[in-house]
């Protein structure tokens, strides 16, 4: 167990996409309770520095495993499948078409101040995401099909970004409404 131990081992979880998030929370807190800099504020300098490194590692690991997309990317990374998200942008044309339609719908609803439509898009996208994460779990945990999982993760990266854009659009409408 050292600072290069992988995050699943760090929190003593099986190396899998389906993990027990309650367990992750508990183990993260147990670990921070031991290594957090507040435990070492009165210790020597070497221990203070080590404590900061461990606590940093615990935070990074927790953030990585908590979010499903990050967790999947990390699993692929451990399996030697890095995403090359920027250099490899070849995507199925129909997926890209679908993306453009989504984006147009969001822009239009935002421009027209259509709160209800944005909520509807948000809901639909969330459902779509849920299905895709279920597929991803099967690809990663049951079939160990890393190629197909990589493809799915790359699509999910697009969709998660789109979800954030809808969130932003909703937030800006809300702020406008409250300030008037």
């Amino acid at each position: 167990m050292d600072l290069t131990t992988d995050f699943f081992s760090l929190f003593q979880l099986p190396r899998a996409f389906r993990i027990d998030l309650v367990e992750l929370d508990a183990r993260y807190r147990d670990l921070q309770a031991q290594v957090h800099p507040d435990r070492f504020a009165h210790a020597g300098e070497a221990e203070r520095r080590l404590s900061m490194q461990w606590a940093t590692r615990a935070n990074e690991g927790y953030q990585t495993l908590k979010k499903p997309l990050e967790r999947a990317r990390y699993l692929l990374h451990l399996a030697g499948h890095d995403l090359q998200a920027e250099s490899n942008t070849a995507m199925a044309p129909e997926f890209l078409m679908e993306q453009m339609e989504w984006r147009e719908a969001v822009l239009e609803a935002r421009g027209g101040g259509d709160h209800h439509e944005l909520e509807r898009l948000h809901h639909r996208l969330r459902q779509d995401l849920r299905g895709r994460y279920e597929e991803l779990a099967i690809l990663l945990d049951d079939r160990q099909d890393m190629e197909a999982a990589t493809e799915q993760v790359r699509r999910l990266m697009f969709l998660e970004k789109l979800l954030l854009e809808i969130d932003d659009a909703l937030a800006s409408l809300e702020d406008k409404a409250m300030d008037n």
Partner: protein
Amino acid sequence: MALFQIAEPGESAAPHQHKLAVGIDLGTTNTLIATVRSGMAVVLNDEQGRPLLPSIVRYLPDGQTEVGYAAQPWQAKDPKNTVVSVKRFMGRGLKDIAHVESLPYDFVDEPGMVRVRTCAGVKSPVEISAEILKVAKARAEAHLGGELVGAVITVPAYFDDAQRQATKDAAKLAGINVLRLLNEPTAAAIAYGLDNAAEGIYAVYDLGGGTFDISILKLSKGVFEVLATGGDSALGGDDFDQRIFCWVLEQAQLPPLSHEDARLIMTRAREAKEFLTSHAEAPITVKLSSGATIDLTLDVATFAEITRNLVAKTLQAVRKALRDAGLRPDEVKGVVMVGGSTRVPQVQRAVAEFFRQEPLNNLDPDKVVALGAATQANLLVGNKTGGDDWLLLDVIPLSLGLETMGGLVEKVIPRNSTIPAARAQDFTTFKDGQTAMAIHVVQGERELVSDCRSLARFELRGIPPMVAGAARIRVTFQVDADGLLSVSAREQTTGVEAGVTVKPSYGLSDDEIAAMLKDSMSHAKDDAQRRALKEAQVEAQRMIEATQAALKEDAHLLNAEETARIEASIAKLQTLMLGDNRRQITLAMDDLGYETQEFAHRRMDQSVRRALAGRKVDDLNTEEGNQP
């Protein structure tokens, strides 16, 4: 037979020795000092029994200073040399300061942080704040009857890196060992949470004299976890005063005012604001230096109207923080009100309406931050023993990033990341044969560099000439538990390295601090060298105590030879620190540090294993319990 004593980290197996530690709430308007006495956090009063130390510093021509109540009456009579609300200038340039034109000071616009020209010379906000902290320290030591081991100093959660670093520098200048910079709303949450055994989602709405913070926390089983924070580090009670001030000018149709008259009206504005917390209207009467008299009445409705957009601004930050935390207002179990400005009735009303519940006002909004800080300081110096323990997980308020091509910001650590946090990002050269790379560190949420705060610029040199895109430059950001950033850069293929503590670009370098220390000494009776020696001795003592405590807990991690070497280093340091050779003391400290490095590693490994093993024992017990 003697039983083995099992000690947890943070719990000293040594005979209980109470270490002197305080929490200091270095406020815009007032400063408070608190400590834990027989298990209770208490505010330390001055000799006249007053809890507050007004954050006011007056400089006299001979370089002496008056601080607090002594300086207060001079803000109208000697406004140029009497600095109030200095917190607003910490880590700020002249262009960042609101209402500069109505402030009576003779500002000096220096790169990075603004300075104030007084009759005792040009002073930086760090030096002015240090004067307040020196008085706070003296008050603490008079009460506690000994030298302070350290202090937790609170800062607004929304303070950026520049403002935090400036605060830490001020403490250093005042001779205070900073145990931790603690976010004000988090300090309040500790005081409130421990007092009320609170569990669930809480919001802390902290409207102080010059700053506004909103923090959303999850409290559960001894863990205080900040989910999101937001605010405005230039919005507070002062702005409410300013609105009344402008209203007075408008109503009375006054010609341009002298600094003295302006300061006087500002003081009356503040009094009117305070009066309106419990009255329907407030009289404002000012006798100007010209002999003319202003006689006005401000009612609650008008006051609410002229400050409406200030309150709206706070709610906008509240909405953003809730969104960042992924929560709705009705998921918040309680709203803790902190800061004197939450006494303003329209603030109370707006917060109640927003959260659809009455805010929690059962703690003194002026004292709760200092009390929470004192409680945390007590924990950090190791005065707590077993059981009575908690964990604090705080976040950074603003994203940290780097300038990339075209003046755009690439975010490296997003806002609301739990600290300590680190992240590395790889960059490459964009020209053939490029041997240097400029690195510009910024903080803020906007996409353009020009809209963010510039924290530091440095250059990585000595990159061997390669074709464009071949070099791999890894820039690593590390944010420590105080929320302070350090950045290092390294070319991966050759190992060329550059590192900065993010500091020189906006404020004071270590040399400047050293110069200020020396400067402040020339006015004091003892000289700088004696103080430096004293500091080395205190530091050596601290190091010896920490090592001895570690040895007592974990001697089993060392073999006889290793133990003997560490003990020999301690003995050597103990002898040398009685003498007056500072250099020798420092060298002996370095030696001890070297000898204990491996020990520190083993202790940390043991802690990590303990965290994991504790779990296993639990699992084991459950499994056994489930056996038929």
